[in-house]
């Protein structure tokens, strides 16, 4: 590859820039007018303005992306996640233009994007799928019969759906018709495809996904599971590997199934096969294939030592996988928390504005995949993910403790974030016990915030605020002064620090 154009922004664009630099491959990023001073531009080798702030006119504008690739002389495109990452038409366009799309083929993308076709493909390979319809209903009577057959509660889903859009739980027959109509309407306006179907509802499941890597020579391995059950607004916020409930036998079985599923779709490059694991932890069902690098890929990197973005690039370059299934193992335990600009005290409403103070946690076993910096203005146009905090430790208890420490050591002032909320999740007894079913948030976090700060902590905050303001006013504003040299201050430290002891 001569040069890779990265068609994304935020932490994942920064992640890919670094992977390219580590591999000695020149890279370029695109940016919208809202992102001239964003971190991915600052970190890039090259940066091309691609359009105005709205994503449809910039990061989602296929013509502009292709033109940018031509302008910088890129012969490959890394789409990151979101935006154009799983858009098969974009992948097809790259193929037609002779650009390497770093991801699966457009054919594989098109197949996995269609939930009904995916289910058919899996069924043909004996991959377990959730009991349900294999096509949309002929009419309302058909839906009613199918639902009665599988038994309530059922789930109405959009075939083209994603992110929970158009999904409706129906517990009794009388709600079915309204749910199908709503779901169909929402799917039509969101995805341009109003096809819906019905599945059996799996109650209190866990969301277990397997990372896979498949090269273009028929080799495919899995890199074990991630558990990503904790979600709010149908979006994951805490992920980990290994899962607290998957044993080695189940792991081997699900991993083999994931490889089978990927091969059935003709899947190449990095991908994720998502499963639901039932409440008992015995039966699992294929859910979908995520045809991209996932937000939560770092937890897999931490426990396996494999650099997934590097592998994506090697595979897209036509290379054979350097390892076999037997070479891979999980070491220790990793947890990821997603840091969003959102207010957990106000229905997770996103928050924008200037980051007035930013401190990253430091230390062994801590990785921070970050898309922000102090002084940066969080734009209102895009997904509110700011960064991802990942910890790795010897076991799950040590990883939990390290994550609590890391969250506590992190500061983002000026905008609302979910930092305190995440701390409470990791600190909770339910999380410690591994009770991480998908209903975690409603079941265990509904009364958050439970405790308020102690008087002592508030007093410390007030002391620091007063001292900080008094320094400012004595120097006439927040001027950065030259710190006194030790020779200047030796005397006063002595007086200051030694008095009482």
């Amino acid at each position, binding site marked *: 590859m001569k040069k890779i154009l990265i068609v994304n922004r935020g932490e994942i664009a920064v992640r890919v820039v670094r992977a390219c630099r580590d591999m000695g491959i020149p890279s370029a990023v695109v940016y919208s007018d809202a992102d001239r001073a964003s971190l991915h531009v600052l970190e890039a080798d090259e940066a091309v303005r691609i359009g105005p702030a709205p994503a449809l006119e910039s990061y989602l504008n296929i013509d502009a992306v292709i033109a940018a690739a031509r302008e910088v002389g890129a012969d490959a495109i890394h789409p990151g996640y979101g935006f154009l990452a799983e858009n098969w038409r974009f992948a097809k366009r790259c193929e037609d233009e002779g650009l390497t799309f770093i991801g699966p083929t457009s054919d594989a993308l098109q197949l996995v994007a269609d939930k009904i076709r995916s289910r058919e493909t899996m069924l043909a390979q004996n991959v377990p799928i959730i009991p349900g319809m294999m096509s949309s209903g002929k009419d309302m009577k058909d839906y009613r019969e199918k639902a009665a057959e599988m038994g309530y509660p059922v789930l109405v889903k959009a075939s083209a759906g994603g992110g929970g859009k158009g999904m409706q739980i129906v517990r009794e027959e009388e709600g079915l018709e309204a749910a199908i109509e709503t779901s169909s309407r929402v799917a039509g306006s969101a995805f341009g495809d109003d096809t819906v179907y019905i599945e059996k509802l799996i109650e209190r499941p866990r969301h277990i996904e397997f990372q896979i890597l498949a090269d273009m020579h028929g080799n495919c391995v899995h890199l074990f599971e991630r558990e990503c059950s904790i979600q709010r607004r149908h979006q994951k916020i805490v992920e980990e590997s290994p899962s607290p409930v998957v044993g080695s036998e189940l792991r081997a079985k699900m991993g083999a199934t994931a490889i089978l599923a990927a091969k059935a779709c003709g899947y190449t490059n990095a991908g994720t096969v998502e499963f639901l694991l039932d409440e008992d932890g015995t039966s699992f069902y294929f859910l979908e294939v995520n045809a991209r690098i996932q937000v939560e890929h770092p937890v897999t990197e931490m426990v396996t030592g494999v650099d997934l973005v590097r592998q994506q690039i090697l595979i897209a370059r036509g290379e054979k996988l350097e390892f076999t299934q037997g070479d891979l193992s999980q070491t220790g335990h990793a947890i990821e928390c997603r840091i969003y600009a959102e207010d957990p005290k106000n229905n997770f409403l996103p928050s*924008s504005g200037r980051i007035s103070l930013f401190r990253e946690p430091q230390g062994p076993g801590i990785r921070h995949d970050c898309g922000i910096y102090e002084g940066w203005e969080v734009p209102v146009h895009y*997904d509110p993910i700011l960064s991802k905090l990942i910890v790795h430790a010897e076991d799950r208890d040590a990883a939990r403790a390290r994550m609590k420490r890391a*969250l506590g050591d992190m500061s983002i002032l000026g905008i609302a974030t979910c930092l305190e909320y995440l701390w409470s999740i990791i600190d909770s007894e339910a999380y410690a016990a591994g009770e991480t079913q998908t209903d975690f948030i409603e079941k265990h976090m509904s009364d958050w915030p439970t405790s308020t700060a102690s008087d002592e*902590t508030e007093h*410390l905050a007030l002391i620091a605020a007063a001292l900080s303001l008094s320094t400012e006013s004595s120097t006439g504003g927040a001027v950065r002064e030259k710190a006194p040299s030790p020779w200047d201050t030796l005397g006063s430290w002595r007086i200051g*620090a030694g008095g009482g002891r």
Partner: protein
Amino acid sequence: MEFEFTTDGEKRRVKTDARSPRTEVTIDGTSYDVDWARVRDGVISLVIDGRSHTVQVARRDGGVDVQLEGRQFSFGTGSRDDDSAVAAGASAGAGGTIKAPMPGNVVKVMVAEGDEVTVGTSLVVVEAMKMENEVKSPVDGVVKKVNVAAGDSVGTTEAMIEIEPAE
């Protein structure tokens, strides 16, 4: 030097002489013997009774944000910016003037001038960061003025809709 901070509607008086690296700080009558150092802009090191605390402080309009040991605090100060802070806080509550809950883009305006509305009537949909938010009427009344249209960018200070509240 004396400061007055407000937190959850309550006032706290903090008195300090910050000129020396070891100073007494008094909060509403409780005194602390504080050994302190300014680490950099916005970062203060406190050693009180042998305990070490590193505290982050950042100014904002009408107050300061403070973070320590994983907890975040937002204190109001009696500065000239206070008006805007009060105004922002009132955006949801105080009748007539409807502002956006966050900066974003107007996706849909659901009322026109002259429309009658009741508490909970959807007025405007504002989209920011891939999330749509319906702004609802906090009062019963009649729409007096509509200042925005679909596609407009809005901040949190300008009035999107003005409602004449019913008696």
